[in-house]
């Protein structure tokens, strides 16, 4: 199994000198099995370059399985620029959590509607199909086993575990910690007041959600986790739906995961700041006696869990 990072940023793409090393494209991660099954998680702007590589490398038609964590822009905005979409014979299977109010195909089709984009979705020449998933779905994509869990993010997001070749990688983005707010579909205008007590039903739901995520990460070789926030960011914006590195470390520790990949970097985070966050996180795990390898995702990073 090989894991490659094509986009590691959250919110919106951030070009420029400050992001040159870690990269400015939004979320996109590719997982390939030894037999060649290609699963891609999220379609942020990073997927544009993946598309170019697929077009250049694959001799025949391509087959891509695209798992979507949720449909906020930074996780889907690259898809109209994914060149295999416009090539006859290619296959694209899109998976995301089922919603009662909105069909998945409509969410993607609206992205390329007039007046937003010049090429409507119906003109994509590839064979595109959609699978709507239930919470805690379990299914197979060729030789890759997929399981999922619900995350704590506005309008709800999904985490995926992919297992193949005797290894597993878990993608946990985007999510808030499972402690201060329960996110559902409603807009949360204000952070909860200091010391605000959550309703018992919310607490119960969050505890269950957290347990689901820990279980999903159990014994994983790699865990890619939304660590967009510093502790200071989180204090100011607990209602924005993102985690801190310490939240990811805690989940990985409880789950006995081997390696944590810090992911979904904040748009304002310069390369040197990500270096510092990585160093702090490593120092904290060492100090606390947590046996966990930590890396920070950058564009172009390839990980082979065989070698972890």
């Amino acid at each position: 199994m090989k894991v490659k990072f094509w986009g590691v940023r959250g919110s919106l793409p951030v070009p420029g000198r400050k992001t040159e090393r870690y990269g400015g494209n939004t979320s996109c991660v590719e997982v390939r099995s030894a037999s060649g099954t290609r699963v891609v998680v999220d379609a942020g702007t990073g997927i544009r370059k993946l598309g170019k590589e697929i077009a250049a490398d694959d001799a025949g038609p391509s087959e891509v399985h695209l798992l979507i964590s949720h449909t906020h822009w930074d996780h889907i905005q690259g898809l109209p620029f994914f060149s295999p979409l416009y090539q006859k014979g290619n296959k694209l299977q899109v998976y995301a959590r089922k919603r009662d109010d909105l069909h998945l195909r409509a969410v993607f089709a609206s992205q390329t509607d007039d007046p937003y984009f010049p090429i409507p979705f119906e003109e994509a020449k590839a064979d595109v199909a959609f699978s709507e998933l239930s919470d805690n779905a379990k299914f197979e994509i060729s030789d890759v086993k997929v399981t999922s869990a619900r995350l704590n993010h506005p309008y709800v997001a999904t985490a995926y575990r992919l297992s193949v070749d005797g290894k597993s990688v878990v993608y946990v983005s985007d999510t808030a910690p499972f402690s201060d707010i329960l996110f559902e579909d409603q807009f949360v205008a204000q952070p909860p007041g200091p010391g605000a007590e959550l309703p018992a039903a919310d607490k119960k739901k969050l505890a269950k959600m957290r347990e689901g995520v820990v279980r999903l990460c159990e014994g994983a070789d790699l865990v890619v986790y939304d660590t967009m926030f510093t502790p200071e960011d989180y204090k100011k914006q607990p209602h924005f739906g993102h985690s801190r590195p310490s939240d990811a470390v805690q989940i990985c520790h409880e789950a006995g995961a081997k390696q944590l990949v810090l992911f979904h970097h904040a748009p304002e985070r310069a390369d040197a700041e990500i270096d510092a966050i990585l160093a702090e996180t490593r120092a904290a795990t060492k100090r606390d006696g947590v046996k966990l390898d930590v890396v920070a995702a950058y564009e172009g990073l390839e990980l082979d869990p065989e070698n972890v």
Partner: protein
Amino acid sequence: MELTFWGVRGSIPAPGPGTVRFGGNTSCVSLRTSGGKLVVLDCGTGARNLGNSLLGGPFGKGGGEASILLSHAHWDHIQGFPFFVPLYIQGNTFHIYGGAKSSPMLEGILEGQMAPQYFPVQTLKNMGASIEIVAIKDGEPFSVEGCTVTARTNPHGRSGALAFRVEDAGRVLVYASDAGYAAAGAPAESIALYRGADVLVHDSTYTPDDRKRYLERGFSSVDDAVAVAVAAKVKRLVLFHYDQDYTDADVDALVARARRLLDDAGATSIEVSGAVEGETLSV
């Protein structure tokens, strides 16, 4: 008036070492008028940096007022809007002008980007600032922040994009992004709009070869930009809206080609440069 470029790229942001000099953010230009007012031309991802740069002034305290002119609603011209922080500060006022059949339709287009399946803020109404949205008509001058603005629709692939002529205290800026003229050249109305501009910021997405290859996308080549600059006798041409795959060296080559073409046409007095993210120029 003073012009600052916050995003100069077309189609999709292009981060990476290859674009750091000219910049990888999508289209956004700000204009500081002679009266000190702010006008924003398009809201690509460059709008995020513009918004952040304003927070030290009245926009940070809810005392700011500005106008935003939108050429059209393709993503690379509106995708920075949800990340423009002054829109979230109560007390700020924004007037947004764009092309649509009616003002409610233009509002609907901007609401579409904020919808809960795409963005956590869910609706413009949750943004905080006071936002007025106005659909404008071709060729009818209107007043914006003390300037006179005239808009014309240029052909752009299957749709159109507005070009804006902004007149302020005797100076003229024209912003014409996303223009894909027919083989016969730009329509007379477009040349009339650009006529005598002190600065013409013009779509120069492609080399002539790429323009031919991607004809249906409806963008200009650098040659098209030079042709309208010469025909309209502008004083300065600024190349803009580079293809997402062009590196800094590719854009250097576009600028050099434009200079050569202008000289060959005997238009040696027309200045030319490529728009650079973060640079300010005086009109």
